[in-house]
Structure formats: structure tokens, C-alpha cells
């Protein structure tokens, strides 16, 4: 009886070792498999629109603008990419409650290029709506709907590697044009941060505390341009070849105050002549 039990145990041990030993995939070189280029199926590409919201933490009307951006995002989901740019007089800092500086070199450059509009105003794909490019907050929704009705012209794929040890984010985006297009294009890659709790001036008591909303939550805040304010020209002096990937690379080290789990990469491609955005994309820094 005891011998039989010992035999069974031995069998159990051997079979357990065998089971675990075989639970392994041993790979042989080459470990990288050439894929060529993934050509996106135009039917599957979704048009994504960029809303650039100019704002400032001392801007009393800006919570209204951010509320509209937030509501639009809730409705349109991934088809709307919001980039909140703190710039202008209302974004200046002052000692005390408003000492946090959300301004960025790139954000200020974009704001100045669009002639320093009063805040809150914004750009929807930097396209014209009702004869204007810089749109008031009530024009964002109709302009967005107009843009969403258009066929997608390109796809953007963003690959992010985040090194949590040195907090470096390496970004690689691949833009593929679906059809023949003319002209030169640039790809911009920005880093944004969500859910930043910091005071905001507010003149609408219906939205929140007024005049100082101390625990205001700032969303989609532009933190840094990875490839500069105007990105990188992907086809200087050449025609775009449809279905060919155009790669843009860059890296940035997250400031110690930026929380990686709230940071996103925003990439978009725009025409150099009109600055009109034709496609946008957004992914989380640490992955979904």
C-alpha cells in the first residue's frame, strides 16, 4: 500500500515537472518577422478630429468652453481629440493660487500664429467654418459635425514605449495616406495630461464655485511638443505616396510632476499650406 502511494507521488512529481517543462515556447532566430507595411482598409479607418481649445486658468469664461469640449468628447468619443492650450494673458501666473504655469512654448507659438484670439476660443481641425478658423465655443459643435462627415484621408498609428525607470517616453507614429493627395504635410506629436487639479477662475456659478474654483479639474492639458510646435515635414519636396508609411519619431522625459497614468500622446497630420488637420490620434502613455 505504502509502495503504491509512493509510486503515485513519484508519478505526480514527474508529470508535474513534465507539464511545467513543456509549458514553454522556445523560439528560434529570426525573432523579428518582416511584415512589410500594414495597409489600412479605408473602410476601417475612422476620421478623428482635433479640437484645439485656447484657455487660461484666470479666464472667467473658460470653464464654459471646457464644459462644451467635455460634452462633445462624451458624445463623440475617440473621434474627437481635444488639446487644451493654455496661452495668452489669462494663462499668466501670479503668486498664490494661480502660480501653476500651464503655458508651453509650443502652445504659445500656436496661439500667436492664430493671432492671439480672446479665450475661450478654439480650432476645429484648423479648418474654416462660417468663414473663420478661430471659432467661438458655440461654433465648435457644428464645425466638428461638418468635419466628421468628411471621408478619412489618412490613418495614424502611434507606438509608445514608456520607461518607468527614467520616465522617458519614446513615441513612434506612422501615417499612411489612403488616397492620392498633393502638397506637403507635417506630423505633430504632443504630450498631454488629464485630471490636473488646480484653481481656475470661473464666472458661472452653475458650473462650479465662483469666482475661484479651487479644485478645478483641468483636462487634455498640452504639456510639451515632442516634435516642436509645427511638427516634422514628412514629404519635403516630394509627393505623398498612398499606402506608404511615413514615420515620425521622438522622445520626451516626463517631468516629475506629470503623472504618467494621466498622460497621453496626441498626434495629428496637417497640410503645410493651409495648416488644416486631416487626421488625429491619441493614445495613453502607459497603454490601455
Amino acid at each position, binding site marked *: 500500500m505504502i509502495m503504491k502511494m509512493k509510486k503515485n*507521488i513519484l508519478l505526480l512529481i514527474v508529470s508535474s515537472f513534465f507539464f511545467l*517543462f513543456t509549458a514553454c515556447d*522556445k523560439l528560434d532566430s529570426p525573432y523579428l*518577422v518582416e511584415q512589410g507595411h500594414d495597409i489600412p482598409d479605408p473602410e476601417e479607418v475612422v476620421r478623428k478630429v482635433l479640437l484645439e481649445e485656447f484657455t487660461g486658468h484666470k479666464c472667467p469664461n473658460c470653464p464654459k468652453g471646457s464644459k462644451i469640449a467635455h460634452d462633445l468628447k462624451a458624445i463623440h468619443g475617440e473621434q474627437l481629440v481635444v488639446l487644451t492650450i493654455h496661452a495668452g494673458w489669462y494663462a499668466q501666473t501670479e503668486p498664490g493660487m494661480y502660480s501653476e504655469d500651464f503655458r508651453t512654448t509650443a502652445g504659445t507659438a500656436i496661439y500667436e500664429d492664430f493671432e492671439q484670439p480672446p479665450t475661450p476660443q478654439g480650432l476645429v481641425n484648423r479648418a474654416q467654418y462660417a468663414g473663420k478658423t478661430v471659432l467661438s465655443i458655440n461654433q465648435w459643435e457644428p464645425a466638428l459635425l461638418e468635419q466628421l462627415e468628411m471621408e478619412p484621408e489618412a490613418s495614424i498609428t502611434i507606438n509608445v514605449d514608456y520607461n518607468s*525607470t527614467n520616465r522617458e517616453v519614446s513615441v513612434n507614429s506612422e501615417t499612411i495616406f489612403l488616397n492620392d493627395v498633393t502638397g506637403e504635410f507635417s506630423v505633430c506629436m504632443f504630450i498631454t495630461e488629464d485630471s490636473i487639479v488646480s484653481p481656475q477662475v470661473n464666472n458661472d456659478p452653475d458650473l462650479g464655485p465662483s469666482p475661484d474654483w479651487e479644485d478645478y479639474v483641468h483636462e487634455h492639458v498640452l504639456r510639451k511638443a515632442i516634435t516642436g510646435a509645427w511638427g516634422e515635414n514628412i514629404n519635403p519636396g516630394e509627393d505623398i505616396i498612398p499606402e506608404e*508609411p511615413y*514615420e515620425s519619431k521622438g522622445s520626451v522625459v516626463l517631468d516629475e510632476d506629470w503623472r504618467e497614468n494621466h498622460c497621453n500622446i496626441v498626434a495629428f497630420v496637417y497640410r503645410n499650406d493651409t495648416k488644416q488637420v486631416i487626421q488625429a490620434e491619441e493614445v495613453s502613455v502607459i497603454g490601455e
Partner: protein
Amino acid sequence: MKRLFVLTTLFAFYAGGISAQGFLKGGQVHGNFEIDAQYYQPDDKLGITDSSLAGKVYGMNAFGNLIYTNGGFSAGLRYEAYLPPLNGFDARYEGQGIPYWFAGYQGDKFEITVGHFYEQFGNGLVLRSYEEWALGYDNNFNGARIKYQPFDGVYLKALAGTQRFFWEPYEDDNRGIVKGFDAEFYLNDMIPGLREKKTRIVLGGSFVSKYEKAKTKSILVDTTRYVYEFPENVAAMAGRVNLIHGGFNLVGEYAYKMNDPSAMNGFIYKPGEALFTSLSYSQKGFGVTLSAKRIDNMSFKSGILEQSNALDINYLPPLTKQHLYSLPTLYPYATQPNGEMGVQAQLVYTIPRKSKIGGKYGTKIEVNYSKINALEKEAVEPGIPIDSTGTLGYRSNFFSFGELEYYEDLNIKLSRKFNSKFKASVSYFNMKYNIDVIEGHPGEPMVYANIGVLDMTYKLDYTKSLRLELQGLFTEQDRGDWATVLLEYNVAPKWFFSIMDEYNYGNPDDDMQLHYYNAAVAYVLHSTRIALSYGRQREGLLCVGGVCRQVPASNGFTLNITSSF
């Protein structure tokens, strides 16, 4: 699953008045609690302003363990709250809940646990899950474990589970599933002829397999896109031996891990290896230990993309002394899982009491030396740079030390009790610290530091004592020279007072020649200890067992409450 556990437990308690009473009869409940809270203040000198605090003026980490035992049955849970996490802890901990609960039964030869559990195979080279509150580290398994002792001297363990990842539940293949098996054989207990032998022999073996749904990851080389082939199943195995003969103790473990490309190793496919050996001898008043280890590509996580202190399946024991005095802890060693070669020697000798040199109470001498270098690496093939992603990475001679030094530490401590009231110790540390690699400060030069510590305790009476620590750290690199004074006043067993100042008087930046002062008071009431301190915390690494976390500079109040029952 958690709900199922709670319902099952409630059912066990309330399935009927009589059976519930029967279940509770003879049962015992134990537990312990800890609350760590900090109130942060702006400190211009440390660069902490209202805006950098961003409204986060306080943090709190807290936990409570409750364990019910009744005969062989046990069940328990741990509640944790990070509201919000203290500075320096991973922000992903923010929130509260029950990340650990279990139920188990232990019979004479058999033990089963379902729910969450901690486990270690051998030295941990292929599997160890544990929790370290000070680090914010917890890689517990959630699954099932069986331990079985089929006959004398044979101990078997098998487990399967997923690991904790902050508050994120396991779903949709968001991390791997770990299975493991371990067998340990105490030969002297197994073989009747060896029972009375002076030499004790213990052999062990482990197998661990991780299943993780393959991720899709691609890389562009020039204009061509390549996709990584990832193994969905990664196995690791280890064999170990422990020989004990009289005062001698030999421990050795070798581990091997199959191809495991990951973000940690830059997606190379080289198998991993680790060797840990230790030979010690001890007798009354004398002990010596010689240890050596090799770590080669042995990060083993249940998340292929994870790079932080999370989802570690294994543990790589350090071969450096963990210092307790504050200035030597400025330069702690963090294990380098991608590769290191290390040796360590420790000697403890007590000069006998009532001898000429040893004095009335004897004098204790402790000497410790450790040295850790990089691996020696060669290219896999001519033309392919070392560590190239998507390749085997490198070749390395198993017994060769690389030229790059990571860490070297020689420390000596002499301790002596002079009379019934006064005792003192003096320590010297000589350190070489590769701050570039260990702390990730690219380009910073190697730190060479000399440290001296004088530690004196004077008993005022039966319950009261004073302790004075004087420390000095001298280096030309990093933040320059430091001096520390610490004075403690103990009124046993209830009260404790201390004041401390760490002065970075040699900082090359005049504005950073700061005093890091701290005052603390603690009170003990039965099994509860309440401590309150106020002061500055210097920036640095906090390491426990070679695993480290970054501690940011801070200023403010700290409250610590621990209690057990």
C-alpha cells in the same frame, strides 16, 4: 470573485445557528493596523512650492490585517487605503479596497489556500511573492495553492494565479497567469540510514511557467516594419542544495529562464541565468560568510511591458549589506536584474570578555565587503551591436566580471560595552557607487564616499537612556559632504524622543547646503505605538532587499500609528 468570497464566508457563518456557533467556537481573530500620514508644507529651499504641491498637502497610506483561525482553518483579509498615496509611492495605488483575502485549511500533511497568498521557492530566483509596506511593493498571487508532504522529508508545493497590479483586476489577458511547482527533499529525514548523520542535506527543485497572451509589438528598421515573435509561455526552473555540517552551511541555487523578451531587457531573446551561492561557518563568537552570485537577464515578470516595481514573479537576493545608519543609506544598492556579478564576505568576531583587548564585556568586530560589477558582454555576431533588440542580445562568459563597476562597499564596525551604563560603537564605510546605473543619472561620475559613525548609548537609570549618533560622509562627487547628529531619549517602555539634523554642508551648490532637521516623539500604549515627527526629508532611494523606490524631498509632519491584537 471578491463578492463570491464574502458570500461564501457569510454563508459559512450563518448557514444555521448551531453550525455558525460551532464554526466560531474555539476560533481566534488576530490583526494589525498601520496608518502613515504626512502633511506637506512648501519649502522654497527644497523647491517645494504651493504650485508644485498642486493642492496635495497631505497623504495617507493605511492598512489593516484581519485573520481568523480555528483549528486548521484560517481566513483573512487586508484592507488598504492610499488617500492619496504618500509622496514617493506609485500614484496608481490611489484609492482604497481589499487587495488581499484568503481562506485555507492546513491538515497534518496537506494545506490548501484559495484567494491571495505569498510564496517563495528556494531563494526566490524563479518565484517569490511578498509584500513590503515601506516600499509600496506587493506582488501577491490570486489563485490557489496546495502544499503536500507525502512522506517524511518531502515537501511539495503547487500553485497557479495572477499577480496584484495596484488596483487593477485581472481581466482580458491584461497580465500573465503564473503556474509553479516546487519540491524539497530533506534527505536525512527520507533515508533512515542518514537520520543520525551529522551532515544534513536538503535538495530542491522548482519549475515556474508564465502564460501571457502575446502582445503585438512592431519596430521599423529603415522603412521596413518587423513584428516581434513573443513566446506566450515562458518557463523558468531552478535547482538548489543546502549542506550543513557542524558549523558549516553551504547554500547554492542555479536558475535558468527560457527566452523572455520584455521591456525590461529591451526585447532580447537570450535565456536568463542566475547563480547564488553562500558558504558560511559559525561558532560561538565567530562567524564568516562568503557569497557570490551571477545575474544574467533574469527579470521575470507577468507583464511583458511592465518596467516598474510590479508584477515580478521572481526575486533576486542582494549581496550587499543593508545599512541602518542614515548617511550610509544615501548610497544603497539596487539589484540590476539585467545583469550583474557580485561577491560578498562577512566576518563577525567577538573578542572574548574579560580579556585584555576585549574588556569586561567583550568587543564585537564586524567586517563586511561587497563588490558588484556588470556582466562581461560580447556581440552575438560581428556587426550586430550588443543588446540589439530582437536578437539574442549578447554572449557572456559565465564566470567573467565585466569592467564596469556598479558598487563596492567595505565597512567595519566595532561595538563595545564599557560598563553597565555606557556602550558605544564606531563604524567606517568606504563606498564606490555607480550613480549613473543605480539611480539612472546618466553621465554622473562614480561616487567615492568615506563615512564614519560614532554611536553611543548611556543608561541614565533602569528605564531611561540617551543615545547619540555622530555621522560624517565625505565625498567629492554627487551632493558632497554631509554631517549628521542624532540624539534620542528613551523612557522605556512608553516614551521616545529624538532630534536629528543632517547637514549637507559640502553641497557644490551653495543654495543646497541645507539642514535636514527632524524632531520626533513616540508613545507606546500596550500594543499600539503612536509616533509624530516634523522635519525635512532628503531626496534619495529607499531600498529593502535590493528593491528600491525613489523618495522625493519633503517637509512637514508625519504621523505613524501601528497596532496589533
